[in-house]
């Protein structure tokens, strides 16, 4: 099948590649760019494991063609850590609050939560739950993911996070 040339910025770096018009963005990211932190859970836009950030929006990359992302600015989980290599507030929050178990939903969940906190820096619990409702986790029951995002929000906002007693 004839291939199309695409260029985009991924995690701050200019990348390019030749793709079929039907190549899904998630396959371009995982196979061509070798960024395997973005996962595939359903291929039908339900589970959110493939969530990436495109031009300031959370997008499920399993139902977008790579050619549609031509010229866009993308962030994947591999671009989330701080410049000095330390964990970002969200990554740290997920670890501190036990917001992950098998880790398969985690990249999509963190990418989504990062955009959520940019849209709403001080979300309520209900706003967090609604904000991540496009991302399914089969392990945690979400409670500790909510706490992880609250932890990160507090850290970013420079306020003390009160960990709920067990």
């Amino acid at each position, binding site marked *: 099948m004839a291939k199309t040339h695409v260029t985009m910025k991924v995690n701050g770096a200019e990348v390019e590649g030749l793709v079929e018009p039907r190549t899904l963005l998630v396959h371009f990211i995982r196979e061509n760019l070798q960024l395997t932190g973005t996962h595939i859970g*359903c291929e039908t836009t*339900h589970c959110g494991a493939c969530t990436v950030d495109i031009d300031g929006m959370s997008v499920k990359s399993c139902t977008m063609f790579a050619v549609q992302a031509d010229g866009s600015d993308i962030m994947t989980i591999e671009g989330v850590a701080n410049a000095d290599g330390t964990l970002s507030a969200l990554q740290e929050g997920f670890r501190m609050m036990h917001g992950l178990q*098998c880790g*398969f939903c*985690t990249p999509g969940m963190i990418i989504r939560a990062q955009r959520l906190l940019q849209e709403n820096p001080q979300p309520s619990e209900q706003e967090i739950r*609604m904000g*991540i409702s496009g991302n399914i986790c089969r392990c945690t029951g979400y409670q500790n993911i909510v706490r992880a995002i609250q932890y990160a929000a507090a850290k970013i906002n420079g306020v003390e996070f009160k960990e709920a007693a*067990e």
Partner: protein
Amino acid sequence: MNDLTPTREQRTAALEGMGCKRKRVEDIRFTQGKGNYVDDVKLPGMLHGDFVRSPHAHARVKSINSEEALKVPGVLAVITAETLKTVNLAWMPTLAGDVQMVLADGKVLFQNQEVAFVIADDRYVASDAADLVEVEYQALPPLINPFNAMAADAPVLRDDLTGKTDGAHGARKHHNHIFNWQMGDKDGVDAAFRKADVTIKELISYQRVHPCPLETCQCVASFDKIKGELTVWGTFQAPHVIRTVASLISKIPEHKIHVISPDIGGGFGNKVGAYPGYICAIVASIVTGRPVKWVEDRIENLSTTAFARDYHMTAEIAATKDGKVTALRVYTIADHGAFDACADPTKWPAGFFNIVTGSYDFPVAHVNVDGIYTNKAPGGVAYRCSFRVTEAAYCIERAMDIMAQKLGMDPAEFRMKNLIRREQFPYTSALGWEYDSGDYHVALQKAMDTVGYAALRAEQKARQEAFKRGETRELMGIGVAFFTEIVGAGPSRNCDILGIAMFDSAEIRIHPTGSVIARLGTKSQGQGHETTYAQIIATELGLTADNIAIEEGNTDTAPYGLGTYGSRSTPVSGAATAVAARKIKAKAQMIAAHLLEVHDDDLEWDVDRFRVKGNPEQFKTMTELAWAAYNKVPPGMEPGLEAVSYYDPPNMTYPFGAYICVLDVDVDTGATKVRRFYALDDCGTRINPMIIEGQIHGGLTEAFGIAMGQEIHYDEDGNVTTASLMDYFLPTAVETPVWETDWTTTPSPHHPIGAKGVGESPNVGGVPCFANAVNDAFKFLGSTHIAMPHDHWRTWTVADKLGLHA
């Protein structure tokens, strides 16, 4: 000693051993997208396989024409049953003693069954070509309803079993019959029912569901023709068993097969069995000499690999009029689908379903299970539970509620009256299990006190009155469930898989600097083994958890083990870990005695060191002893400091818990809202409270999904109508309730550290608790049993049938 010398407490805390909320080692890579899952494995020259699948539930395969598919550039081969017959692999053995078609051999027996396997150099091309394979079918009448399976005129599903009157588990009484399994005292039960003051009988069906981990099943097979060696990376909960099975059926010597389970994106029982995709990828790699990847999509996952439940249980309880249970009788139709591919210990065709007496002191009981074939996907896996234990818990907990209702007793009071008492442990149940330990009344009382049970019942009463007066359209339900699990399979005397005893293993090696590597026969799928096994070793050996690396999942390096499912990692491999550590500690003690020039018996253990009794200033730390093990051992002792343990558990472990759910039902919409869910779990010794809490949250959420909406549904033609996440309910953060967790601690008396396992308890206890809450909301209107799942539509229908919309 000076002010800078750490105290005993500080030294203990520095270890991050058992009992501490150690943060997870795994999270460093997972939060950065640096996990290594099967689909992340990429090898030079790797090919991709994709299946041609049956649109029919039951049909003859008249012909398969691959001509057009093979013309697609990039397609290397199309494998069919005829191809597999040349290597004697058209059928494969199942873990349950049956055989299963790898690719359709003459017939298809369920929708989406594997018919042909297309191999191409690109996954898109493989999919394109699969669409071009022409298969001609002759449709046959499908058998979908399990209650029709043994009718005289039921269609014959398994032509291959024609004339076989015996199966792997005894006599077959019909062409669609797999096994009959009975346990208990039938005559005693009959006698008790004849004498009973009160009896109940109810058909309690547990619908077909699917574990649906977020990562589907997948593998990469790579056969090296020069060395004659096969390497398989796969989503395997039990990599060693997979290697043995692969060796037995491929005839490749076991030492030339390398099975690797890398990071696994959730399992929940879905990844225990062997599936046609694995066999086809292996054969394709052998045929082509190149690595072959097979990745299931979500529809394939939900409709072909590993369903769970589909148990239809008719439960009867006999009781005295003052509320003492006197007998239990359960007859079950078990729908196993087209092949018996249950992943149970070999001698247990209905798993440990005989735990169905639950937490109650039944003097006599009898269970009787008929396994049958239907035109549905094979499986019958333990979805986040020990083998058939969630079915048993759902059955007994619903039945107890129904009996309480008939007696006019409160369900909690009725349970209190019948729970096994503390002084009865170890307790031998009427169906043959020896419950190792328990303190049930304390647990249930704590649960009731915490939620304010009496006040909730008073509120419910007032709400019911208000409802009758037409002041509210909401009903309040209070669900009580008390469960006992049976996990940690298991003792070699009664548990094996294909003849391999269900032990598990740990190998610990202490390096000269006191850092450690430990390898285990289990395989984490999110449970956090890299974190928690290190905590056991840290406490046992007094070495800091951060200096202990845990490895699992590589059959070349890990000791043989039976894998992770049925909550067996902590009860079995956790025990092996402690036993291996104690072997090391015993050797270290001898080295310490040698260095300190005292007798072994003059030493005592103190957190991270051996010290001379009565002279605590004289000591050797484990770190010092590790170094000494490589250069200053006593005369005659071998150098080095390592040990291995293959642990054959003396008994199962029996975690238990008391759960209470409070919910409100809107009778006009059928919508339910969980107001409160309280879960008290007793898993014995607690290794990492943070991880335990996380496991309980997750298990409760899966229980919520099952009870309130999940179902793998087939229409009458055998079309699976719930094979995508559009139709199959997985709770999101919005629907999922907030969980309250609590605990009591009753250590297992036979486990080296007293731990019992916990990962599956919340699913086992959670499902009946939600179901009991929904039923409880309606029972004052005369309803006795409402079938799961309790989605809004069904709940609205119940309200409608009760005349609440008139």
